[in-house]
């Protein structure tokens, strides 16, 4: 039974007087505190944790733009709403972030949706017929912990036309990085929307960017979860300060209630 942790991400050298204190820490061979600190961009460090090779300048620009696009889904988003439920009641900071992660993990605008779209990129590439087949195939009926999908991943189930920020993000990402998937997505957006019958969602743009950056679906899911947390944190703290009297509670109507009053 092993007692050590196998990793190709991290290496530490101990201080001479304490085996539990690191004198130096290396991330994939780079001295983190001795060399990277002050030189590396945050998004470069973020990528380095997931892959051996450093990002190129164009790749780092794309990841940074993606991080900005995802930083705050806004207070109407279910994940941020969940974080605010933590904040308004004075729950711990971690609870607010856990709430945002749990809700933001899902197949409707969440991490799982990004995962599924990235899986589709692996299967379909830039082949429109393959996407047509994927988008029109019946949802797999395999039972899992995830609820049955209700819409084709990467599209807005309530949308009428492509939301302006989705188009802006896609155009910005393409201008920063002419990698295959993003450029193809921009060219084929209208066609893909016609096939699915729904407008493209930000999750699809994020998935294409993450795939173009070389991340796997699992890595893309993690990064999407992570990069959406700043807004959740900020909105949770803001609601804590504003107090519960200013936070919506909504009305409820009980169906089949014996008494039938409203709360």
């Amino acid at each position, binding site marked *: 039974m092993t007692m050590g942790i196998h990793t190709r991400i991290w290496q530490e050298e101990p201080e001479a007087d304490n085996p539990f204190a690191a004198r130096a820490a290396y991330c994939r061979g780079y*001295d983190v505190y001795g060399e990277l600190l002050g030189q590396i961009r945050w998004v470069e460090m973020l990528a380095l944790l997931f892959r051996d090779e450093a990002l190129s300048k164009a790749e780092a620009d794309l990841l940074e733009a993606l991080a900005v696009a995802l930083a705050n889904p806004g207070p109407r988003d279910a994940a941020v709403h969940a974080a605010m439920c933590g904040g308004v009641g004075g729950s711990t900071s971690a609870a607010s972030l856990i709430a945002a992660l749990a809700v933001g993990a899902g197949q409707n605008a969440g991490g799982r949706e990004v995962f599924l779209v990235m899986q589709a990129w692996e299967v379909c590439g830039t082949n429109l017929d393959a996407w047509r087949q994927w988008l029109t195939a019946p949802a797999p009926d395999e039972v899992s912990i995830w609820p049955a999908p209700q819409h084709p991943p990467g599209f807005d189930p309530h949308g009428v036309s492509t939301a302006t920020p989705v188009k802006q993000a896609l155009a910005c990402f393409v201008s920063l990085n002419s990698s295959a998937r993003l450029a193809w997505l921009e060219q084929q957006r209208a066609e893909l929307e016609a096939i699915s019958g729904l407008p493209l969602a930000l999750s699809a743009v994020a998935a294409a960017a993450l795939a173009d950056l070389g991340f796997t679906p699992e890595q893309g899911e993690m990064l999407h979860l992570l990069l959406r947390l700043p807004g959740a944190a900020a909105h949770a703290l803001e609601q804590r300060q504003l107090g519960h009297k200013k936070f919506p509670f909504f009305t409820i109507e*009980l169906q089949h209630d014996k008494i039938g*009053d409203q709360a």
Partner: protein
Amino acid sequence: MNPQTLLEHVGHLKTQMGACFVGSRAVFRGHDLHADLKDMEWVELYVFGITGRRFSPEQLRLMQAIWAHTSYPDARIWNNRVAALAGTARSTGNLGIAAALAVSEATIYGRGIDIRAIEFFIRAKKQVEDGGNLAELVATELKQKRSIAGYGRPIAAADERIKPTMALAEKLGLADGAYVRLAFSIEEILIGGRWRQRMNYGGLSAALAADLGLTPQEYYLYLFPAFLAGMPPCYIEAEQREEGSLFPLTCAHILYEGPAKRRWHPAG
């Protein structure tokens, strides 16, 4: 769905599940919680909340036992370790235990296996009733999915939880349902074949639950607190001991296998 449908839901919830009328009453699936349901035990209320159905005292006793028999206060086990690490890191008990429960929704154990196990039993029983051959079904499942949820065990071959759970089920008159018999028939096939796998606790629990009439989703939600009772002891002990003293790792415990040391060149 479209924006019009969403607009109809703005600010208002229509529900059949329940509501709290502060200062007067609380309704739980159409019943007054403090009047109609006032004598319900917690487990009864919990499964009533999930299924909307009532269960007999024997069935509820078995459901509680399925949770209890897999509640191990062993801080080495991955999900329990999360609760214990929260204790040693001086985080809160609620955060540690909530995270430990979230971690229990794993692929190779816990909820990920549980929902697959009950789904397979329900599917297999129907196919056998429709004239299918169980041995062929098992072989096909193994070929397609490489494993059958509820059989084999990542750490050990024998499962110590099966005997006491079956003993209780027998005592309660709940050990001879169609799904339990099917589960043991599948075990016979797996032991007799080249797979040499025994049924594990996940398999037995899923079969017992299927005999109680639970659907895969009901079973999945019912099992949420399955490991819970073992978690607080892990947190408590770690919290009571010297901070940071649970499973400390020296720098040498990191077994690095990545690229050699190299110089950083900022991207131009």
